[in-house]
């Protein structure tokens, strides 16, 4: 499964995580996550994925964007990721990921977004 195909399973993974949904109950924001060349547009409402679209959307606005290449997401989603690949900020510090846009909603709900973007780790059998 490609990294983008794994990330495409995010709605099911989030739906299966009642604790993360509970912790995200104040999260309402549109954001963009790029898995390599594949953009995903997430519309979060009270911690649930009200919208989840894969692929380019013309002039679609989003509060913030997190981008990383396929290698970074693949490493990040290992069941037991290696040092330097195990956290979003480890990825940005090493130059394997970027964050841009309005950081306020991201920082207001940082643990939620870290845990949300780590959910595909559960699909991993390696590590």
């Amino acid at each position, binding site marked *: 499964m490609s990294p983008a195909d794994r990330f495409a399973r995010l709605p099911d993974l989030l739906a299966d995580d009642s604790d993360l949904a509970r912790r995200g109950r104040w999260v309402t924001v549109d954001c963009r996550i790029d898995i390599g060349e594949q953009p995903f547009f997430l519309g979060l409402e009270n911690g649930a994925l009200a919208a989840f679209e894969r692929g380019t959307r013309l002039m679609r606005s989003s509060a913030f964007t997190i981008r990383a290449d396929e290698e970074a997401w693949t490493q990040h989603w290992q069941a037991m990721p290696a040092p330097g690949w*195990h956290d979003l*900020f480890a990825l940005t510090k090493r130059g394997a990921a970027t964050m841009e846009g309005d950081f306020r909603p991201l920082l*207001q709900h940082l643990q939620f977004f870290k845990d949300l973007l780590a959910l595909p780790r559960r699909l991993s059998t390696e590590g």
Partner: protein
Amino acid sequence: MAPVLDPMVGRYLRLEIDGVDHRLYFEEAGPKEGGGIPLVCLHTAGADSRQYRHLLADREITSRFRVLAFDMPWHGKSTPPDGWEKTEYRLTTASYTAAIRAFCRVMELDKPVVMGCSIGGRIVLNLAIAHAAEFRALIALEAADFQQPWYDTTWLHRPDVHGGEVCAALVSGLIAPQSPPASRHETLWMYMQGGPGVFKGDLYFYRVDGDLRDKVKSIDTKVCPLYLLTGEYDFSCTAEDTLRTAAQIPGVEVQIMKHVGHFPMSEHPAKFREYILPVLAKIS
């Protein structure tokens, strides 16, 4: 049934630091009168001495060491100095060094060992540079002469972001994935409880005032032995940062800890024990 009590005892200490009255909370365990070697433990930025509760309860350590861990001014149960509301808290190399030396002096500790983690590790390097003769040995955890910043600290103290939760969320990535979940979340809980702006104020020392590049070259480990230990999952103070620092200090002992991150003593006490017991054995 008898109450189940942890062995450490907590007290408040009245002392002056740089001419200012302070009331510091500390905990200790071990043989006070039985010749125990004083071992003073320094917590990380934005946290408090609870990080060392496993060490304070480890009878293999407290049989030989008098372990003391204090909450730095503004942290934990140490009250900030009178008039704190009119100042912005900022830790500096000078103020941090003064607090440690005042604690050791007022407690009448004879050539203590000092072990610090993160900012505590950085200040231990400064003790080795400037005051080595006062100490029996120095242990710096997650320490380097300098580290590349990886986020903007202004996000740590502003009204539209919950300070405790953002501090904990940021540092959560510094904990190794192998750490037991209960220990991970206990470590994060402490970060959620810091006073407003205190973590940010600590990082002023870390990022702006405490750059020890070049200065570490003057450390003489013949005057005071120095041990550096860093967890492989610490991307704030990386293994490379610590090894680069160690390469400048003849006689230093350095070790990279597997399956450990930035908070070895609290995120994975059992694993840390494997690494710290041999170091303490050499010192005692």
